[in-house]
């Protein structure tokens, strides 16, 4: 693989608390090494540029059946936007891009790891086939547990150990990465045409509350000691007044501490919090409650969040929160896809236009930014757009621009039709804070890697870690006065080195190094009861046999296994 030295860049590595020091980064055989270990390296001159680890995305819907349904039922998302054959494979689409475009665009932005936010366990083969077809970036995928019949039954009876054994089995069966929970109980209730609108609404038939599902899965997660924490999309998402439900869900994590060997400190990751920070009681008087939310998050370090920033684009919403998508469809009267995944989950898809002419959209825009700007610890607050729900991931550079520049925020706000109402209903206009490159590095690589429990491999530049390095044409000592230059620099990185291979140069993909599938293999004690339950459920309720349900090795592409031994 050869040797590489990245010379004279301003290095930002929050995992080692390196804050823009001028230093050289050595690379040998796909790993970061001390520069003294190099004999005759090729040189990349990074003078006057910012050097960071390859980006890590904590939450993005990029592969799997619901993404593909989004592609299929939105051909207009591709109209006049493709084909653009720049690389080996055809790139097309905007809010639901083709797998190829997904991989290439993440690489152009300097990202190397993307965590697929929701894998329906029954459809894990589809997820893994799309992972294989997404070039360059390493992927993991989180199976959804919050409405799974096994999980609901075990947790109702307080059988944490059995739930843990089932969780370990399902992670292996689907080659999954972590415990994802979407609208706990609510999606199951959707099968009855109902929802769980607060954490105390019991789930029909199962008679368990979302609160108990959440605490049960936190306990399960820490019982197993998984790399990532429980990853929650909370109840009553997207509705006015729901910040109360978000706070209620946060409070469930009180008293729990992380037990793992992966350097993770949180027990709960709350995702796309922008959708859960609304005050008021109707769309007429919706306002921002980010202060309440962030006061709580800042004071409790066993929680991490990502923002789910609205980017003011036409996009495609897709989530396992079936009732929410139905609600959204009734708001905008556009086409709607809905599906049930037997025993496990559901999903819905609706196109959505976040317009600067719509008051709710611009309030949502302000709320996302406020979350980040009120955060005291950006190692626990991450940039996402909940791709593609609040906007496509290719807008991350624009989100970074808004966070780094008050002038850029003002410029965007000038285009708002309801600017006065937006300013009245939010606090964005009173915030002058501008984030630094170090803080952006925390939010986009070091923080997510630590929260995912993979900070020994990704998200940093310490010797021994994967040689994933992104170089951006931004000089921290001479930042451009035009904020659009920040967006341009983060959209098209000067260089991306992945696994020691120069992958992107001047914003163009020049090589396609092998990508990996990252999954978690948990060793648990033999559990005859759970084995029997799995056998019974598949016999009685599933439409497939248990042997065909589990992922075949042929579906798994270039695996990187993270092993966890919970028998110790």
């Amino acid at each position: 693989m050869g040797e590489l030295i990245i010379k004279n860049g301003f290095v930002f590595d929050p995992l080692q608390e390196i804050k823009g020091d001028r230093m050289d980064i050595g690379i040998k055989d796909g790993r970061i090494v001390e520069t003294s270990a190099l004999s005759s390296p090729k040189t990349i001159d990074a003078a006057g540029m910012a050097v960071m680890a390859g980006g890590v995305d904590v939450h993005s819907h990029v592969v799997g059946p619901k993404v593909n349904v989004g592609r299929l039922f939105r051909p207009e998302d591709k109209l006049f936007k493709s084909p653009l054959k720049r690389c080996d494979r055809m790139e097309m689409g905007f809010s639901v891009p083709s797998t190829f475009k997904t991989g290439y665009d993440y690489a152009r932005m300097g990202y190397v790891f993307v965590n697929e936010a929701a894998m329906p366990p029954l459809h894990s083969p589809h997820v893994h086939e799309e992972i294989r077809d997404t070039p360059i970036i390493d992927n993991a995928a989180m199976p959804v547990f919050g409405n799974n019949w096994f999980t609901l039954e075990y947790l109702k009876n307080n059988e944490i150990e059995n739930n843990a054994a089932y969780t370990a089995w399902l992670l292996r069966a689907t080659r999954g990465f972590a415990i994802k929970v979407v609208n706990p109980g609510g999606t199951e209730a959707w099968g009855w045409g109902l929802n769980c609108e607060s954490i105390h609404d019991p789930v029909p038939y199962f008679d368990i509350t979302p609160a108990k599902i959440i605490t049960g899965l936190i306990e399960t997660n820490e019982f197993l000691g998984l790399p990532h924490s429980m990853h929650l999309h909370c109840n009553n998402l997207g509705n006015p007044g729901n910040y109360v439900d978000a706070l209620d869900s946060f409070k469930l994590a009180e008293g729990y501490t992380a037990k793992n060997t992966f350097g993770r400190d949180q027990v709960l990751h709350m995702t796309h919090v922008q959708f859960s920070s609304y005050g008021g009681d109707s769309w007429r008087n919706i306002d921002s409650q980010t202060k309440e939310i962030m006061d709580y998050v800042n004071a409790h370090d066993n929680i991490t969040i990502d923002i789910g920033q609205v980017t003011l684009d036409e996009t495609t919403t897709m989530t396992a929160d079936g009732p929410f998508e139905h609600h959204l469809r009734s708001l905008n009267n556009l086409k709607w896809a809905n599906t049930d995944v037997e025993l496990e989950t559901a999903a819905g898809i609706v196109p959505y236009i976040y317009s600067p002419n719509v008051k709710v959209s611009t309030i949502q825009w302000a709320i996302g930014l406020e979350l980040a700007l009120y955060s005291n610890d950006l190692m626990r607050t991450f940039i996402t757009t909940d791709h593609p729900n609040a906007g496509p991931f290719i807008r991350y550079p624009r989100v970074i621009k808004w966070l780094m520049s008050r002038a850029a925020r003002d410029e965007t706000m000038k285009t708002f039709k309801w600017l006065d109402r937006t300013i009245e209903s939010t606090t964005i206009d009173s915030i002058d804070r501008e984030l630094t490159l170090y803080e952006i590095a925390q939010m986009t690589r070091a923080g997510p890697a630590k929260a995912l429990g993979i900070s020994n491999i990704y998200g940093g530049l310490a010797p021994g870690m994967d040689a994933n390095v992104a170089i951006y044409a931004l000089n921290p000592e001479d930042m451009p006065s035009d904020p659009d230059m920040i967006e341009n620099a983060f959209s098209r990185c000067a260089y991306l080195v992945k696994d020691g291979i120069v992958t992107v140069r001047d914003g163009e993909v020049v090589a396609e190094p092998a990508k990996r599938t990252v999954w978690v293999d948990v060793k648990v004690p033999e559990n005859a009861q759970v084995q029997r339950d799995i056998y019974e459920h598949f016999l009685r309720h599933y439409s497939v046999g248990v042997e065909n349900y589990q992922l075949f090795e042929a579906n798994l592409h270039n695996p990187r296994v993270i092993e966890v031994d919970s028998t110790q």
Partner: protein
Amino acid sequence: MKTVTITLANPPELYLEGQNITPDNFAGKKAAEIATLDVWEGKLKSPLGKYFTVEGEGGATAADTKIVLRGDCTRVKRIGQQMTAGEIVVEGNADMYIGGWMKGGKIHVKGNVDSFCGIGMEGGELIIDGNAGHHLGSSPRGEWRGMQGGLIRVAGDAGNDTATFINGGTIIIGGNADIHVSTHGEGGTVIIKGDAKGRVGGQMVKGDIFVYGTIEYPLPGFQLVGEVEQEVDGATARFAHYIGDLGERHPVSRGKTVYANIYTRL
């Protein structure tokens, strides 16, 4: 106004993708430059001059440019696609997507056209002396924002799925229309001087349809509410007035529910 005449001298073996044949692309160019514009036969890109002889030159702007197509253009698609101004005259037939997504100007086809003509149209005029195929003035597939404005006038018959998701503008069909007219419509006007086959106004929210002949299979979602006299395309006539589609949502404006209207001539 300056005129460019292009004559199809070497007809393509496959169909020709002619989206560059617009006044916008021809404006400010001499004949030799126009001959170098790209056209596609299948996936192979070639200069326009490989198939057409070019005479004359474009005007200073699109509005000052008139294009005349001669020869048998039955296999030339996308003429006038996304044009904003100026004029195109096709002396004979043309293929699919003529005047698709056009914003302004005028296209006159003296023969027949195939499907998808005038789809996603925002403005301008599309005049067809012969028949039109399917999806006339319709929305592109998947798109819920169909025809926004402009005028399409077909002297002969139209195929099925005319004016799907129409939001504005007017379509006038001199002859008959096949099934599915103004499906999902939320505005605009469709006038059928002959007969309509059926499924007229399915899931329509707003907008008007006039049928001078008969609707062979009317939809049960429309209800007769009375008789009205209306001026349509320059002539006044009496019509039976139906509202619907009653199975669909309908907006309320100033306290009154807004329905789609179908008028059939008495």
